[in-house]
């Protein structure tokens, strides 16, 4: 028995001394466990269809996200009583069209939106394209999140505020991201919690996420995720209101 106890203590001591991986290793592992770089390299476009629900407020609408190589993306949420809220880029002009009106994004907003336009979307961004989006990635330590040990990373974008990403120590999957999103309404702190993953064509991607913003929690559930689907070019064309803003800015 004493020998067993000694071995147990020894193993705990050994485990405690296991070196914490570097940020690069954690991010590389995420890419690996979700499909591997070779699988991601084949992805030229992503189509994600599902719903967005504001928890506890009886608000639920349709959500569609399209992304394509070249920094092109288009996202639309159609919320009952509010209407379509759109967000997009033709690869050059990054824009949104919400209740507030049409708007061209510039500065940090444009930079971060462009970074999020890659094949991995904003969830786990940096894992594939850390050199283009992030100036610094570092491990802050290990924590317990919902009873599971996680690695806590701080990712400092080349523009904008640092964000924290939490990777499950056992699975290597991203569990949570804490970030500060610049918007016309100011800097909005958001906690994005990945609740479910789905594997499609060999790539494991978040399929259910909840974004917590103060007292509001929005859950996005993707019922359909498709890679390399032929997305019409018109999907990424600038809406007339945005084109008018572009034209007006030239005058």
């Amino acid at each position, binding site marked *: 028995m004493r020998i067993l106890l000694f071995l147990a203590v020894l193993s705990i001591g050994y485990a405690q001394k296991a070196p914490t991986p570097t940020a690069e290793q954690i991010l590389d592992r995420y890419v690996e466990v979700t499909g591997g770089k070779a699988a991601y390299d084949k992805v030229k476009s992503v189509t994600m269809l599902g719903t967005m629900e504001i928890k506890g*407020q009886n608000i639920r609408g349709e959500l569609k996200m399209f992304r394509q190589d070249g920094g092109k993306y288009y996202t639309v949420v159609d919320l009952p009583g*509010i209407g379509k809220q759109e967000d997009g880029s033709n690869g050059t002009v990054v824009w949104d069209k919400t*209740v507030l009106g049409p708007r061209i994004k510039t500065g940090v907003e444009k930079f971060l939106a462009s970074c999020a336009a890659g094949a991995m979307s904003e969830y786990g961004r940096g894992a594939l394209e850390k050199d283009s989006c992030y100036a610094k990635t570092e491990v802050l330590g290990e924590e317990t999140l919902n009873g599971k040990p996680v690695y806590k990373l701080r990712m400092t974008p080349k523009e904008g505020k640092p964000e924290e990403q939490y990777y499950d120590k056992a699975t290597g999957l991203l569990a949570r991201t804490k970030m500060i999103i610049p918007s016309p309404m*100011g800097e909005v702190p958001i906690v994005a919690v990945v609740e479910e993953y789905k594997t499609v064509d060999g790539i494991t991607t978040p399929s259910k996420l909840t974004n917590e913003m103060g007292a509001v929690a929005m859950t996005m559930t993707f019922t359909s995720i498709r890679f390399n689907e032929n997305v019409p070019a018109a999907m990424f064309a600038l809406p007339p209101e945005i084109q008018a803003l572009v034209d007006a800015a030239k005058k």
Partner: protein
Amino acid sequence: MNRFVAGLVLSVLSLGAQQVESFEAVWQTIADKHWNPKQLESLPGGGSWADLKDSYRKRVQAAQGQSEVRTILREMIGKIGKSHYAIAGLELKGVKAMRQGGGTSPGFRVGLVEGKVLVTGLNPKMEMVKLGWELVGVEGMPVNPAIAEIQKQAGQTLQAALRTHQMLQSYIGGSSGETVDYEFLVGGVKKMVSLKMPAGDGSSGFGFVQGMSVGREFALLGPAGDIGYFRLDMFLDVVRVLPQFQQAIEACKKCRGFVIDLRGNPGGVAVMANAMAGWFIKENGVKLGTMYQRGVDLKFAVIPRLGGFEGPLAILVDGASASTSEILAGGMQDLKRARIFGSRTAGAALPSVIESLPNGDLFQFAVANYVSESGQELEGIGVKPDSAVAHTAAALRAGKDLVVGAALDWIYANPSLPGRP
């Protein structure tokens, strides 16, 4: 007898427990949901919110009856030094005995003018009712006893004008397709009018607010029809209202001025205020104010619209203009982009909720703070109009809306505004 005594003891014990539960609910709710916990650490009169708990709990435990508990709780929440915190007695529920119609407007609006319920507004196609008529009954229910009760309670009710307005609109409202009988007093003679409630206009609600018809109207006013007028009864139905507002602006390119009528508008979807303001603002980086919640400060940013209206803007408000109405009116006033006409708004610019306590009383509490661009908290204060104007019975009977009239006079006298952003 024993059974009666046992029942009595149980009732008393139960009542006592409910009072303590109510105290706990009030204390904990504020501790959990006040928008700025730091304010609770240092109350205006000294001490912290946490310091109050034990002493007030003991007082509630020792209280002789619900009325005393109410007084104690009011004293406790008064220590926060803010409005929008209220304990309303059971007597408020008595007003619910007043007729509560549906969310469909009959095509006219009423208000309390000189102590009487008068018709203060008409939809464009309403011909059976006239401005200034006195409403004395709906569906056989006389209006005066209910008004007397509302006025009696006004002193202990926050935003009395807002509550009165809401009760009156509910009093005259109906369900789509329903026929409602109204009794008016016209020149001392009773006049009965039966009105069929219009079919639902398809207005979309938001969240749990559903089934409301969102009254709105665009017209060209003035002798030459050269002043745009847009009335909005509620900030809802975003999908249709904002495009209609855009059409109104576009139809008014050559107007001498524009009037937004928010009288009786209790608010709704807050960002509609920003969206509407965008049609009157030229510069980037402008905001109407800031909403402070726990962990998130949201600026009410205004995004300038191409082809916006640059002429004089008047916004009409009254004591029943609340929340989003106050954000729009107060913000545009701060930005010196609009002149405000009417009477002081409700001072209910904060998102607040009302919950029922275990003892049956009602508890109102704020979940955020709104500060206008000039740094003014609108909560409990409201927007003070630049031109104070109110209905009079005589003017209404003559078919005149004095508030609209004052706005038109100002627009004709002021072709431009200084300091427009």
